[in-house]
């Protein structure tokens, strides 16, 4: 049954890849086939993911190959099932959205090619989380990276897109190299590349090698996830890609790295960790969360802003997982499970709301043809549905009750607060500080989305693009609406979600904590004990709705008839125009100033004065930039080093064929000599 489902899934993606190629120069048919089949495959994937999550035994599919060490084996356990579910949920919504969005590209980019890459990308992500052999894993991982690279450079006629693509390609391969090293270390010890052998090695890895594996996996998967300081490619690559691809990359592709980390740390390494592993993961998470949101605040390109928020949210996920690892190291399995569940909960939540927000950004791009927030404004009246869905996404990512982002951040907070049960004084102090920094992150995210939504959708349009914007086609609204609904459902239904996540963490930490997570018949989330902390989002939602009713009632009883007057905004005697409005730059000015140590801003103000009087300016030019600290101090030196090295080696590159033949001949002689 499951094999049949899997075959149908693979077939759907394969047809989605190749069928559109048969309808040359019929972009609309290509579009419908490619994205329709991707949506069908998404639906099948949801079922498959649920089977993986709920099935009593992991499902293993073993396909041998003629290449040594390589087997095309797939394994669907609860962790894989969870990620298959996440990818498919987002894949379904994004495919529906894409069938509308891709119309934008008719005649510019071959839709059949786009559909081929898109379906292949989705398929490779599914295979990554199901692969059960290191060799096979690396092949599909590389496929995922390459296909997403090709998708990023879809609009390769633009130079900045080509740069973003190259940057992404290099960074992702640095990551892949480290993952390769990780797996080779396992291979050296176990003599096999099957994950099964890594998992149940005859003897555990030596201590030094374990530590090395910890670091290489963190760097390798971290480069894909976008942890600070390996995050620099995200704000280039995600905005450069077509918006539906950005939604997939930011929503789910970077999550495959979270999958990899959990797989390696909890599944392969297992056993007791040293406590500092968890602490390092927590630290990396906290720094990523805080710096991610801080750089997001300074972005006025909506898609770059969202890309930086991915850095933030990956940080929050790692805070949850890191907390779990700390507790695991101290042999507190129930709290370890809490941390991992919090991280996983935030993983699916972030996938849902980030894909939603990227689709929202795509809709704005579709309607206005610009990504610059300073040129938006007044779009809520022109695009009411997009606005509503974007608002739901913004409220969720700002972790406001009763949405899904709030529930998962709340769980991360509980894990950090329960540090009071740890024996180490250092960690007892550090975890609450991490909680306070998470609160700062949350508050800054709130400010950032007040800016993103407020300046894009409210007040008067700031450009003619925004003035002439129109609501996007129905398929795009459907895709966004589906995820907006999921944001609310995941927020109101921790009762359903947490037991599912518990099935994922149970094999790794050893115990199930569903029985200790709930009180009042499942209505209240109470991690470990209701005496310590509890939360009931359904009750909060009911209370909020009831009290809104009370507010309306009071206004009616005390105020009588609801007469209103509409009049233009008071502009001190002048007519209010878009030029009176606050700009995005102005909005974040206080934050930039308070955190100037981090931003290192440089402000340039040039004033050209009138000749007649020094008191009047003819023209003013204002420019501000923030220091790209990581690029300047970490990346540029490396790039510089390699450029210099390449310069040195240039002398042997004369470009003449006979010289190269001589090189080959010389090498051959040398090798023969060595062989003897």
């Amino acid at each position, binding site marked *: 049954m499951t094999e049949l489902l899997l075959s149908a899934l693979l077939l759907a993606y394969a047809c989605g890849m190749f069928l559109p190629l048969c309808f040359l120069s019929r972009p609309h048919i290509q579009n419908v086939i490619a994205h329709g089949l991707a949506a069908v495959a998404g639906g099948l994937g949801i079922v498959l993911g649920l089977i993986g999550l709920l099935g009593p035994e992991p499902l293993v599919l073993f396909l041998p190959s003629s290449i040594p060490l390589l087997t095309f084996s797939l394994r669907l356990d609860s962790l894989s099932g969870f990620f298959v579910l996440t990818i498919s949920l987002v894949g379904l919504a994004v495919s529906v959205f894409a069938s509308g969005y891709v119309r934008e590209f008719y005649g510019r980019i071959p839709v059949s090619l786009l559909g081929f890459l898109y379906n292949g990308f989705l398929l490779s992500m599914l295979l990554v989380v199901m692969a059960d052999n290191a060799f096979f894993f690396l092949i599909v991982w590389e496929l995922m990276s390459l296909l997403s690279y090709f998708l990023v450079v879809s609009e390769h006629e633009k130079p900045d897109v080509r740069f973003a693509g190259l940057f992404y390609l290099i960074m992702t391969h640095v990551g892949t190299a480290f993952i390769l090293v990780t797996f080779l270390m396992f291979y050296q010890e176990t003599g096999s590349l099957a994950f099964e052998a890594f998992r149940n090695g005859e003897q555990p890895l030596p201590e030094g090698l374990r530590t090395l594996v910890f670091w290489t996996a963190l760097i390798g998967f971290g480069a894909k996830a976008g942890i600070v300081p390996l995050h620099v490619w995200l704000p280039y690559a995600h905005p450069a890609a077509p918006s539906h691809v950005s939604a997939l990359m930011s929503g789910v592709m970077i999550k495959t790295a979270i999958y990899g980390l959990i797989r390696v740390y909890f599944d392969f390494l297992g056993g007791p960790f040293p406590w500092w592993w968890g602490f390092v993961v927590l630290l990396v998470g906290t720094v990523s969360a805080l710096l991610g949101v801080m750089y997001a605040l300074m972005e006025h390109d909506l898609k770059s802003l969202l890309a930086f928020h991915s850095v933030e949210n990956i940080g929050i996920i790692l805070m949850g997982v890191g907390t779990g690892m700390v507790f695991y190291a101290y042999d507190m399995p129930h709290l370890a499970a809490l941390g991992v569940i919090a991280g996983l909960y935030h993983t699916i939540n972030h996938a849902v709301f980030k894909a939603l927000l990227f689709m929202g950004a795509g809709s704005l791009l579709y309607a206005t043809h610009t990504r610059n927030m300073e040129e938006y404004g007044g779009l*809520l009246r022109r695009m009411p549905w997009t606005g509503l869905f974007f608002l739901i996404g913004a*409220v969720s990512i*700002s*972790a406001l*009750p009763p949405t899904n982002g709030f529930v998962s951040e*709340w769980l991360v907070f509980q894990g950090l*607060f329960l540090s009071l049960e740890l024996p180490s*004084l250092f960690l007892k*102090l550090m975890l*609450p500080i991490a*909680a*306070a920094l998470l*609160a*700062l992150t*949350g*508050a800054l995210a*709130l*400010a950032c989305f*007040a800016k993103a939504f*407020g300046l894009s959708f*409210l*007040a*008067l349009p700031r450009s003619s693009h925004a003035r002439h914007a129109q609501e996007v086609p129905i398929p795009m609204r459907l895709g966004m609406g589906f995820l907006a609904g999921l944001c609310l459902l995941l927020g109101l239904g921790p009762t359903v979600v947490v037991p599912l996540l518990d099935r994922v963490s149970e094999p790794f930490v050893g115990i199930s904590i569903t029985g200790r997570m709930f009180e009042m018949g499942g209505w*209240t989330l109470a991690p470990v004990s209701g005496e*310590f*902390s*509890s*939360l*009931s989002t359904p*009750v*909060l939602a009911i*209370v*909020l709705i*009831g*009290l*809104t009713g009370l*507010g*309306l009632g009071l*206004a009616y009883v*005390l*105020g009588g008839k609801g007469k*209103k*007057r*509409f*009049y*233009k*905004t008071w502009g001190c005697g002048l007519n*209010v125009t*878009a030029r*009176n*409005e*606050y700009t995005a730059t*102005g*909005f*974040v*000015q*206080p*934050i930039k*100033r*308070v955190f100037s140590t981090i931003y290192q801003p440089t402000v340039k103000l040039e004033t050209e004065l009138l000749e007649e009087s020094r008191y009047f300016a003819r023209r003013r030019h204002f420019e501000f930039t923030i220091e790209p600290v990581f690029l300047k101090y970490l990346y540029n030196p490396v790039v510089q080093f390699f450029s210099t090295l390449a310069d040195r080696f240039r002398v042997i590159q004369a470009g003449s064929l006979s010289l190269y033949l001589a090189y080959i001949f010389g090498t051959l002689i040398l090798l023969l000599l060595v062989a003897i």
Partner: protein
Amino acid sequence: MITGFLLIAFQLVLVLGLSPLIVGVIRRVKAHLQCRHGANVFQPYADLAKLFRKEPVISTTASWIFPATPYILFSSTVAASLLVPTIFAPMPLNFAGNIIALVYLLALGTFFLMLAGLDAGSAFGGMGSSREAIVASLTEPALILSLFAVALTAGSANISIIVHKTAILQGIVLDPPPHLMALVALFIITLAETGRVPVDNPATHLELTMIHEAMILEYSGRYLALIEWAAGIKLVIFLTLLANIFAPWGIATAVTPAALGFGLLMYVGKIVGLAVLIGFFECMFAKLRLFRVTELLGAAFILSLLALVFFYILRV
């Protein structure tokens, strides 16, 4: 069950009814200290009634966010107030949320208020939202850390349980240094969150200084009434936190008429006392420049952190 609903309903009426009085008391105290006669302490009730009856003006540039915000702000603030025990602990709605839920419920209102400030399209609203963004960002971590420092003593992060346990343990007497530090931190946060001098000035409409008033500048009629009421309720929430976490004396822990009556009396007394103190503070200090506020809030954060450190060090 019935008792629970009755207690919730009673608390709802109490908070809604008491908040204008507290605003009135602060204004009266300030007037006295500034050698003015000042309005009656019940004046805010009349103001609210008047505002509700007035016809609201809505900007033609605004979207549906503008008229929806007052209701969202009102409901989220009142919902937050139901998590905080006033005269009886633990509150029946205790299970619905802990300190994090309280902070984020208040943030929900702030978020929409910031949006509404931007919606009308005038520069003042944007200015208010922008300033609120930085003040809220800096208060939130300090607030969570100071509440957590207190939560440690009680071994719970649910506000009702914290109050209930401190009431039984006689509050501040138990862990004096951490509690005192958290108290000072929470007092500073109260001034910032409720828009009081030295962070903001509720009595000004000067564009150089206003924060909260700038965000709500375009509101009138019943919308303004709801926002003003919500602001009063937020003030009551913070005063209740100060009063009941650090001095829970007299709070009822059993549902008997005598205990509840005594609890009510003590509660109103404590809250009015704190309101007088706030009024006193507002007259004693000048408003800080916006970029000096960060130092004040930084101090609150450091104090909460020290409270945490001292809690563990004294326990070792």
